[in-house]
């Protein structure tokens, strides 16, 4: 197997709050993204997935852990050293309009990264801008437009072309389609696919939309409350789900297929209560308070990611040690609630 393009080891980020408390945004996050691969990072709000993405592009400084881009460690570099490396690692944000300077025209938006990374010739830049616009399917006449004049889908295309301007190899996609209407959403996903094939890009696709992740990603990591609870290939995660939270998440997805209705309803794993606060995290498994299968050991023991099978890691000792399988647990759950 080729070397991964991104390696994250034990990444932890904490944000200070008033009165000495801290909020744990992500904790001991470890994963790899393969060259030309697409890794999906899923979780609900507060899971820490956005923080991970931001740490990868240098917007947030990790408190501990390592981030490697190919054979270079990038989380501990001085800003002046990291800056030229930024042309390799870029990001597309969730809200396209918010991530564009309202006063800049499209051509200014696209020229900015080019100028910053040494393309001094205006003719060269203009040529590159035309190339970029064509690549994302925008007509050249939008070059003089400002963000407010474009549709949401087109705004996001501009953001994508900005991210691609310097020819990066790795792009963090932070919920790039969540704020778009469904038709625009699909077009953007198709565009991202095409660009990946054409340019050999690697993606980290952050999303809460499992339907999309299933279609788009090769590997998937599921996050809950700052930790990765399960990580593996797409098929492992979707067909061989092992962690109770991943299961609950998957069974909550409303697949656009009426035939799946009965099975979804029957398998819905109800996590009781609400997500606990990331300020006051419990000692053992973070899900223990809501998990119908929790026992005492879950509540006191620090849970590690364990290998269920090659490349499939799960943070749940009960399923990994074969004590129970999720299906029998689901059956017991149904019996309890009926």
């Amino acid at each position, binding site marked *: 197997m080729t070397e991964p393009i991104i390696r994250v080891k034990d990444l932890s980020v904490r944000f200070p709050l008033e009165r000495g408390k801290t909020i744990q945004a992500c904790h001991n996050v470890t994963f790899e993204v393969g060259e030309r691969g697409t890794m999906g990072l899923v979780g609900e709000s507060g899971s820490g997935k956005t923080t991970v993405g931001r740490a990868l592009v240098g917007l947030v400084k990790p408190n501990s852990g390592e981030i490697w881009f190919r054979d270079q460690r990038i989380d501990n570099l001085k800003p002046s050293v990291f800056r030229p490396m930024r042309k390799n690692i870029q990001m597309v944000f969730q809200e396209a309009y918010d991530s564009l300077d309202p006063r800049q025209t499209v051509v200014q938006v696209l020229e900015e990264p080019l100028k910053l990374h040494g393309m001094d010739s205006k003719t060269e830049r203009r040529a590159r801008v035309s190339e970029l616009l064509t690549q994302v399917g925008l007509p050249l006449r939008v070059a003089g437009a400002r963000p407010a004049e474009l549709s949401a889908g087109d705004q996001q295309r501009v953001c994508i072309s900005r991210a691609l301007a310097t020819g990066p190899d790795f792009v963090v996609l932070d919920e790039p389609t969540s704020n778009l209407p469904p*038709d625009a959403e699909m077009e953007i996903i198709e565009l991202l696919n095409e660009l990946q094939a054409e340019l050999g890009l690697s993606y980290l696709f952050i999303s*809460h939309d499992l339907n999309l992740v299933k279609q788009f990603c090769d590997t998937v990591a599921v996050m809950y409350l700052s930790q990765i609870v399960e990580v593996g290939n797409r098929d492992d995660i979707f067909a061989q789900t092992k962690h109770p939270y991943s299961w609950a998440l998957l069974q*909550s*997805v409303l*697949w656009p*297929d*009426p035939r*799946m209705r009965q099975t979804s309803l029957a398998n819905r794993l109800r996590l009781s209560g*609400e997500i606990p606060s990331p300020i006051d995290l419990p000692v053992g498994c973070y899900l223990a308070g809501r998990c119908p299968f929790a026992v005492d050991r879950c509540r006191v023991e620090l849970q590690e990611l364990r290998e269920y099978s090659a490349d499939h890691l799960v943070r749940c000792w009960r399923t990994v040690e074969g004590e129970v399988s999720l299906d029998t647990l689901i059956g017991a759950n149904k019996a309890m609630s009926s």
Partner: protein
Amino acid sequence: MAAEDVLRAENLWVEYPAAGKRKIHAVNGVDLSVKQGEIVGLVGESGCGKSTLALALMGLARSPGKITQGQVWYDKRDLLKFSDSQLRQIRGKDIGIIVQNAKSAMNPMLRIGDQIVNVIRSHEELDVESARRRAIEMLEVVGINDATRRLGAYPHELSGGMAQRVLIAMALVCRPKIVIADEPTSGLDVTIQAQVLDDLARGVEQTGSAVLLVTQDLGLVANYCDRVLVMYGGQIVEGAKVEDFFDHALHPSTQGLLWSVGSGVGQKLGRGRANLDVLPSGCYLEPRCARSDGTACRTDAQDLIEVTGSHTVRCHRWQLAEKERNGVITVSGDVGRL
């Protein structure tokens, strides 16, 4: 069981004045009916007029819009002829309403217990104690444990999912014959969304209410609706049972919606949107439609055709749908003439 119409709209038209003396025709000659106990989905791309239609069914139009024509029959009377106070009587008691963003729909200054009690007592003769008991009952039905304690909470103290459940309880507490829900779970986390919808489904099963569910999410439709109505350009363009909607969609607009969830069926529409200020004499979708014959489609008014007892479509070339699905006809990439 004889399925009776609970609500029936006939030839409904809603208009908005726009800049420069133009008029935006948001709803154009809609006929629809909702039968007792059924859950009907109302879908369509953004701008198709579904939220406007939902409001109009309650006799409302967001100022400066106006309902210019049509009748809405509820219990053998035309709602549109009611006075404001009569409408207020009906709303909440006979017709329940659930909007998105529950917290802003509630009064931030009153505890939720008081708000629910107010709703009950403004429509029924009950003393405070009995009203409170009914409120607690309803909250438990919609999945709020510890309901008695929750009565004392203010809206901003609730989580998103909890607030939405409260809104559902408020809508159902007077056992309305029909509930109109406009994107009732948008913005909620995935696991919470599924739970809230399950709770809504359980709630309406108990009260026997019918539901008109306005949404862009086809997953919602697949999992909760019995029947689906598709809107485009302010008109109903297709109506079908949910299985037929997904497997045998006939209208190009429906095909477009299905394409945008990536379920593998359906196809893209040409770019653009319906022009709602000057209504064309022919089909509103024609400029974006691959099936257009270029003549009758453009000039002739399109009526709703009854293909089977339960499946209607507003396209005289509906037979092409099956052929498109089976790949007998391929649709070229560049559809539409914009």
